[in-house]
């Protein structure tokens, strides 16, 4: 039994390890900055989708407002940098703390209810915030510059200020951030919290009867997800050195993030990453080749992919891959002899 599992597990871990190795070596091979830029975009999407997955994938709640958290992170780290010269390395954690507070504020009333309230409230919250920033030139003497957005002042090569003249450091930073969020997900899934979240997702009444305070666990997941999402927002601001409400807080970004999680496979460590690796280039390519002629075609493609995924692979693209490898789960690994022929699990890794 275990003899059959071990090679399969080794193989499953081997593929992400090889992909990671290739990614780490990529800057040495890729000389064209544009391709590196696309890769940063993919990794950034994978990061956001993974952070989204912590609350939405594991609890079954749908957030369509994660862009707002991303925007809060980007705006706060940038405004602190411009106005009081605080390094974005520090500012990003303050931004993330604010986003956590916002996430909990939005989650608290919704998680006490059953039904689609959370999804609706997250959309409303994100749109209100976007519209407010869009139309606010300054607040308490701090310039927000409304829809024009904010430029991050250029300081040249200065690692302490999160600014680099080359794209390569950003590339490695986002890889590190992605690895952190994946590690957090991996750890969470195997902990009591992961089990509790999955129980809540499957049946909230039954979970509560087993002693799980569902509101508390949902809020914890939301707080964690908000914090990580906002860190991503700060990264985005530093990388592009420009943020505006449309791109950083817009519904488009929220939907894209949710889509990558759903298409790739919610409630798994690798699913959202897979979703980002497939959907981001698809969007980039269709925009690049057809954008001028057929505006919005990439959105049609996104829509089609979503429809196909929901119809044929409701558990995400990761599902058939996982079945192929019969990967072992975060929860219950079969001790030799207990599973036997009835080992039909398709675990939630």
């Amino acid at each position, binding site marked *: 039994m275990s003899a059959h599992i071990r090679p399969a597990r080794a193989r499953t871990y081997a593929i992400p390890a090889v992909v990671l190795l290739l990614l780490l070596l990529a800057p040495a091979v890729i000389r064209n900055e544009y391709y590196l830029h696309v890769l940063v975009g993919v990794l950034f999407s994978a990061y956001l989708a993974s952070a989204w997955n912590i609350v939405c994938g594991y609890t079954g709640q749908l957030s369509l407002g994660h862009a707002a958290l991303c925007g809060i992170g980007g705006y706060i780290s940038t405004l602190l940098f411009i106005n009081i010269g605080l390094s974005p390395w520090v500012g990003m954690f303050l931004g993330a703390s604010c986003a956590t507070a916002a996430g909990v504020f939005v989650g608290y009333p919704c998680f006490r209810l059953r039904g689609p309230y959370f999804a609706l409230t997250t959309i409303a919250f994100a749109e209100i915030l976007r519209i407010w920033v869009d139309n606010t030139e300054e607040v308490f003497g701090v310039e927000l510059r409304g829809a024009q957005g904010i430029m991050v002042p250029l300081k040249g090569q200065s690692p302490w200020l999160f600014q680099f003249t080359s794209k390569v450091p950003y590339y490695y930073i986002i890889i590190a951030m992605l690895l952190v969020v994946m590690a957090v997900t991996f750890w969470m899934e195997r*902990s009591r919290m992961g089990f509790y979240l999955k*129980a809540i997702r499957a049946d909230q009444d039954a979970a509560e*009867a087993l*002693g799980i305070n*569902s509101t508390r666990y949902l809020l914890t997941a939301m707080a964690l997800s908000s914090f990580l999402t906002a860190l991503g927002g700060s990264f985005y601001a530093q990388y592009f050195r420009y943020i505006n409400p449309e791109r950083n807080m817009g519904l488009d970004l929220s939907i894209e993030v949710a889509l990558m999680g759903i298409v790739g496979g919610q409630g798994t460590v690798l699913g959202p990453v897979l979703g980002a690796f497939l959907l981001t280039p698809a969007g980039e390519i269709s925009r690049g080749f057809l954008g001028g002629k057929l505006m919005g075609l990439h959105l049609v493609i996104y829509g089609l992919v979503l429809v196909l995924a929901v119809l044929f692979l409701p558990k995400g693209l990761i599902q058939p891959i996982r079945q192929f490898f019969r990967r072992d789960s975060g929860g219950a690994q079969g001790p030799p002899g*207990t599973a036997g022929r*009835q080992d039909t*699990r398709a675990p939630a890794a």
Partner: protein
Amino acid sequence: MALLEVQGINKAFGGLQAVKDLSFTLMPGEILGIIGPNGAGKTTAFNVIAGFFPPDSGTIRFKGENITGLRPWDISHRKIARTFQLSKPFGDLSVLENVMVGGFHHQGSRAAARRKAEEVLQFVGMAHQAFIEAHNLTATDRKRLELARCLATAPDLLLLDEVVAGATPAEAADMMDLIRRIRDGGVTILMVEHVMRVVMGLSHRVLVLHHGVTIATGEPRAVSRDPTVLKAYLGVQHVQPGNP
């Protein structure tokens, strides 16, 4: 001292008085069966005790502590566990993972939760099904799984809501045997059940509800001959005087 004391519980939904002035006590180690026709208020009584609805009035004491109106998870942490009439497995988790959710109740460590879960699965006879996803189980096995999940929280009081409903006679006999073994392990049991053979065979005492009102309590044999009970179940014209 009584383990559970229910005193004057009332619960209405709009104009419907689901439970009216329900009082009973449960001694440690006892099995109390609640029976009654459909809509008698049995499940409502359960939900009130388990914290799913607060009662309109009345008090519930467990080990002397007033637990009226506590939320389900607080009730659970006071060592009361319940099953559901329509079983609610965590369908996309394996049987073992389902039980581990209960096993995490008293300890944060995954290894400890798993040990507890394996021990419970052994006890209920589901060890060979540990790695099946719960939604692939038969209806009876789902009930058994729910029972296992409850046991993993190490309860002192177990509320069983129709655990043999829909079971074949052989499965029902297995379940009765399991319930006896649970009771022998020191767990007090309050059960709602429709299958008379099971209630009568297991319960030390039976409480009969009809339209939310307690119409009889006592030993199973005595209750089954009570004319009020027969009237509630069968209708007045079927109760022949002198031939209950």
